[in-house]
């Protein structure tokens, strides 16, 4: 394996560079996936039947907490990648742990929010609006949950193997995934929640 020391570790081999490009292409497909979910949500938004509508169930407090947690986690994983490029293993691991804890907080608040919706009579089967809403939020939440497991295994590898071209590459790709989820959340925050509450 040819290692190019003029590049950051995560780009240092041909394989690494291609892994990162490949992951970007995957993210391109993810953009299309979420677009279909957003499209169905916008189409079904007014189909509330006899159930509650968006303005009746959305709560600004949980929304602000979720947004703050995810934005901050996106920042901390960015710092993690920065520390990785400085070769600071412990700092990298700590930033990744903080990121995952913030992500865990996000999922926790989202689950709490879902139970509130169910208490108010909004379940997956209530209306076109509710099924599109739960599918969109649930797909995003499932991605974050998957990321928690993925990130934990990456941290484990960083601890046992240290910063190698391989683990640095995996960590960098995971950071791309995490930032992407934050971007999707920004659109949910703006065009599902805030648009529904004005």
């Amino acid at each position, binding site marked *: 394996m040819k290692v190019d020391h003029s590049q950051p570790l995560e*780009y240092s081999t041909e394989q690494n*560079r291609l892994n*990162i*490009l490949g992951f*970007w*292409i995957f*993210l*391109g*497909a*993810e*953009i*299309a996936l*979420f*677009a*279909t979910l*957003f*499209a*169905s949500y*916008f*189409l079904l938004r007014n189909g509330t039947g006899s159930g509650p509508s968006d303005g009746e169930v959305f709560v*600004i407090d949980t929304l*602000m907490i979720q*947004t*703050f947690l995810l*934005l*901050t986690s*996106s*920042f901390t*994983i*960015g*710092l993690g*990648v*920065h*520390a990785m490029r*400085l070769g*600071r293993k412990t*700092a990298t691991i700590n930033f990744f742990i903080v990121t995952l804890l913030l992500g865990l907080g996000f999922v926790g608040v989202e689950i709490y929010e879902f139970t509130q919706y169910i208490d108010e009579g909004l379940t997956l089967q209530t209306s076109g609006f509710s099924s599109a809403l739960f599918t969109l939020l649930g797909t995003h939440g499932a991605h974050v949950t998957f990321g928690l497991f993925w990130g934990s295994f990456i941290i484990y590898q960083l601890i046992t193997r240290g910063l190698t071209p391989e683990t640095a590459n995996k960590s960098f790709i995971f*950071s*791309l995934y995490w*930032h*992407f989820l*934050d*971007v999707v959340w*920004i*659109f949910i*925050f*703006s*065009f599902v929640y*805030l*648009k529904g*509450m*004005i």
Partner: protein
Amino acid sequence: MRELFPAKQVMGYFFSLLLTVIALAVYFVDMSYQVAMTILLVTAFVQAGVQLVVFMHAGESKDKWSIYTTVYYGVFIALVTIFGSLLTLIWGY
């Protein structure tokens, strides 16, 4: 310790918090639907751009061109899917 908090990323973080606060204004301040939607569209897309460039390092490798192409292509598909559906099924044409 200081070297762990690069100015570019700290600024990016504060900027994204600022954009979030501006977006939240549509809920807390009274304004027309058109103005509110304009604010949301601008803050959301600027926010996405900040993430892409500052945090995801989209432009730093020699695959820059391929990466931006795949992202723009994805965004194009997304906009066509969303606005095409709205146009044909809700707004009418």
